[in-house]
């Protein structure tokens, strides 16, 4: 049963991921769709990130006692100004760990 579950998940995921890449060869995108797709990464990732940072436990925590919020801010600011993802990760992990240790 577990392997049937996994097999179905694998087929579904591959079907989704291959949808356009494999079968979209003959599709021509209208210009508006091509434009729309430019905004997909920013929109999806922000939609993932913001609730995790602002409401890690489900309710909004706008305070210095929220290590997720401060850690994400550090990560964002370092990445914004330096474009160095690894540095952003390292510094934000340090801030996050320090805040957790203080709690």
């Amino acid at each position, binding site marked *: 049963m577990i392997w049937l579950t*996994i097999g179905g998940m694998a087929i579904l995921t591959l079907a989704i991921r291959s949808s356009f*890449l*494999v079968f*979209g060869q003959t599709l021509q995108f209208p210009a508006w769709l091509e434009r729309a797709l430019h905004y997909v990464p920013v929109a999806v990732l922000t939609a993932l990130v*913001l*609730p*995790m940072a602002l409401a890690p436990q489900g309710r909004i925590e706008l305070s210095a006692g929220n290590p997720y919020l401060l850690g994400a801010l550090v990560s964002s600011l370092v990445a914004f100004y330096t474009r160095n993802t690894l540095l*952003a990760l390292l510094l934000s992990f340090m801030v996050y760990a320090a805040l957790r240790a203080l709690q």
Partner: protein
Amino acid sequence: MLLVSGVRDTVPMMVGAAPFGLIYGALAVAHGMPLAAVLGMSLLVFAGSSQFIAVSLIGAGAGIVVIWLTTLVVNLRHALYSATLLPYARSWPLRWRWLLAFGLTDETFAVTEHHFRVHGGLNGHWFQLGSTLAMYLNWLLWTLIGATLGHALPQLGHWGLDFAMLATFSAIVAPQLRRWPYLLAALAAGSVALAARGLPYKLDLMLASLVGVLAGMLAESRGVRA
């Protein structure tokens, strides 16, 4: 060498994904999944968030159809990635497109889409392969380590592993917010995601993404200065 560049540009994502592989492996073992199935899911499905959700659903005794439906909804965003990469992938051989579609994770998409946009997509399948292989082997390795150590580290969630995804995605998004339409897209998507959080089946994510994309397009067509 594009293969090597693909691996190199993916290193930060590997660092970000490592804790997820670790905690997925540990979590799956803790829910009573046999080691072969824990590894098999990473090997065959290779989609972190849906693997997490599947494990918790399996642990809760959910039916197979529920697990499949959830996988479908949670991974639907990958169809958008697939479509976004298609303009660059038209020249890739068919076998390559199957292979690279299999490995189209959030992280690889973020890395390769950025690379193609900045450097163009010439021979992009080699870059895509480098990123895919790096993420895949990294995911398998950390899944294995997590499953092996699972019993020894029962409190993994308290070690900040849930912070890893947050930090990684923040660092990916932030540099893209220099242009107004993108910033507005992010603000709209983030606000809706926050307001609609907790909707079942991650529908909040789909809704917020849709609104964000629309906001970006609207800003662009209204000529908001880039």
